[in-house]
């Protein structure tokens, strides 16, 4: 332990940050993109680009639910589950999905389709793609690994982040005095200012998102109260907490369900003004079959949707849940709602996004600053240690590699043929292949030249993405603006802004390279 409190805190801040900064950057990056996951999904499904927005969204729901359930009844009578997602302010089409019955111990395959909410007819051109859901799952389940292990890793990283945030506030003595300070062109000091500024400006967001992120996994991290109170442990606790979510095993005894229209009409007779977000039928035509209506919570700080569960044979209302939450449920659910940001209207969503980007800058600038400080302290003839080269390589691989990988994912969405088997997984493989390529390059050498080359590469990739979209779909930036398709136009504009930022970065790095004397140690090595 160091000899003073301040030094101990500085040590703690440095090492808790550095040990997990690359994983944290991935979590923040993917999490930030997840705030727009429905918008990314919309972009990745060209078939629904031209679906006209509805004027009376809630009034049309009764007919839409009936049509969707009748479609599933006709086409997937033997399915394990029917799933209908109604159009919301963010998603235009009706999502109609069903899950096959799984083999012993395995989950069945999901089949997805879209319906036009205006004509209530199915759209045939469904593109097998995870879209925004990939980034959402990536930020807490990672990929290519067991979910439980991934969630533990993410939780540890989040805990380290929380420690880093608190120790950061402690060591930054002039946190409010220096609030607006950004001294450009001053080497490590500039990186420090960028780190401080990006931390301070969104400090409430950083603390909220990290703490509530841990809360989302709290029953995995801290199951002991539930295990103490319930003989059957967490399972019994969850059954008590949320009985509507409990899985009932299928019996295989087939029964005749009431007509879907009758069930839907019955719901609307009792609850005529509910904005329904989702309808699920578990085990259709089985004696355990249940029809569930989930209500949209809108801008309420509540994540769990109120649900009404009906018996599909008798039409009886079996259960209502989440309509009134207790004080502790309200607190817990409110924190989940703040983390997911599902409540956010476009303005707040953009604020979440900006704060998420600030989080990425905070993590990235901290990692870069550490390497730059170590290199500054080195003597002119000293060779960089393995640790320093590793940190520099990982910085380059993560900060510049993730945008390359994301662009690769989007290009794959547009260029892979629809008939390609395992298309959705192939998009994800290309994401990781793109990242792997950059990582190999970065771990081989991570100097200013490599940063510049990757900045140029990123600029070209993000510039070409709207062009690729224009050549492979019916729309382009101009048509989106003319038709007032702001989500799609926003996607293209954001690509162009990203390309411009990378271009500016490459120009600055090129100037820096030109200004560096040939005898400087930067030519031997790795300074950014």
């Amino acid at each position, binding site marked *: 332990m160091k000899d003073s409190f301040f030094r101990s805190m500085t040590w703690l801040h440095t090492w808790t940050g550095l040990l997990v900064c690359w994983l944290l950057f991935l979590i923040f990056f993917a999490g930030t993109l997840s705030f727009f996951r429905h918008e990314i999904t919309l972009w990745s499904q060209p078939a629904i680009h031209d679906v006209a927005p509805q004027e009376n969204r809630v009034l049309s729901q009764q007919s839409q639910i009936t049509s969707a359930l009748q479609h599933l009844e006709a086409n997937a009578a033997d399915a394990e589950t029917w799933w209908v997602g109604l159009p919301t302010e963010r998603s235009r089409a009706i999502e109609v999905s069903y899950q096959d019955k799984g083999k012993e111990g395995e989950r069945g395959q999901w089949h997805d389709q879209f319906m036009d909410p205006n004509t209530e007819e199915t759209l045939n051109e469904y593109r097998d793609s995870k879209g925004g859901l990939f980034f959402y799952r990536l930020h807490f389940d990672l990929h290519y690994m067991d979910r439980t292990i991934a969630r533990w890793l993410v939780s540890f990283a989040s805990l380290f982040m929380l420690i880093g945030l608190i120790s950061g506030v402690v060591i930054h003595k002039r946190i409010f005095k220096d609030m607006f300070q950004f001294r450009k062109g001053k080497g490590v000091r500039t990186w420090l200012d960028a780190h401080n500024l990006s931390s301070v400006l969104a400090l409430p967001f950083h603390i909220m998102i990290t703490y509530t992120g841990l809360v989302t996994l709290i029953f995995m991290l801290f199951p002991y109260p539930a295990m103490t109170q319930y003989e059957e442990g967490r399972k019994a606790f969850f059954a008590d907490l949320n009985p509507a979510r409990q899985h009932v095993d299928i019996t295989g005894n087939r029964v005749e369900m009431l007509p879907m229209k009758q069930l839907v009409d019955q719901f609307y007779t009792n609850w005529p003004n509910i904005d329904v977000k989702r309808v699920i039928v578990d085990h259709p035509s089985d004696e355990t079959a249940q029809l569930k209506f989930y209500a949209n919570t809108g801008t309420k700080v509540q994540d769990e949707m109120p649900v009404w569960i009906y018996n599909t044979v008798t039409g009886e209302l079996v259960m209502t849940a989440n309509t009134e939450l207790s004080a502790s449920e309200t607190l817990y659910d409110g924190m989940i709602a703040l983390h997911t940001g599902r409540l956010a209207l476009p303005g*707040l969503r953009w604020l979440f996004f900006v704060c998420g980007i600030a989080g990425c800058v905070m993590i990235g600038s901290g990692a870069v600053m550490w390497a730059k400080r170590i290199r500054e302290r080195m003597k002119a003839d000293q060779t960089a240690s393995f640790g320093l080269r590793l940190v520099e390589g990982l910085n380059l691989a993560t900060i510049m590699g993730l945008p390359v990988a994301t662009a690769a994912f989007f290009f794959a969405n547009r260029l892979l043929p629809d008939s390609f088997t395992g298309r959705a997984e192939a998009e994800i493989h290309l994401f990781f292949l793109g990242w792997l390529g950059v990582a190999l390059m970065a771990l081989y050498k991570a100097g200013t030249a490599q940063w510049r080359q990757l900045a140029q590469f990123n600029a070209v990739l993000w510039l070409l993405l709207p062009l690729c979209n224009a050549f492979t779909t019916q729309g382009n930036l101009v048509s989106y603006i003319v038709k007032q398709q702001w989500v799609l136009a926003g996607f293209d504009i954001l690509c162009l802004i990203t390309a411009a930022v990378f271009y500016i970065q490459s120009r600055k790095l090129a100037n820096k390279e030109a200004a560096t004397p040939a005898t400087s140690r930067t030519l031997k090595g790795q300074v950014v």
Partner: protein
Amino acid sequence: MTQLLAFLLCFTGFTGFALAKSSHYRAVFAVRIDTKSSRHILIMSWVCLLASAVVSMWHQFGYGSVLFCGYMAVSVMCLALVLSYQPAKLRSLIYVLPALLIITSILMLI
């Protein structure tokens, strides 16, 4: 309109916080600020910031409080960029911000 007013109040508050500091004041106006003026600006800034919080949370406390945090982040980011690259531009805001605040308040009341 309510949310625009909340953001403008928040931005005005943080502009005041920045100008209450002698280094930033000198960068903007090329003269030193005296202690008394600095104190007055600080009080005005706190009033604006509190007013922004109240206006943000007026209709929906939970949603409004998240919005308010977002407004603070964007305000600090914008000010930091202006103060670093074009500090003199902040001078015009001294007149523009109150005018915008008045217009937005009137439009909101109408």
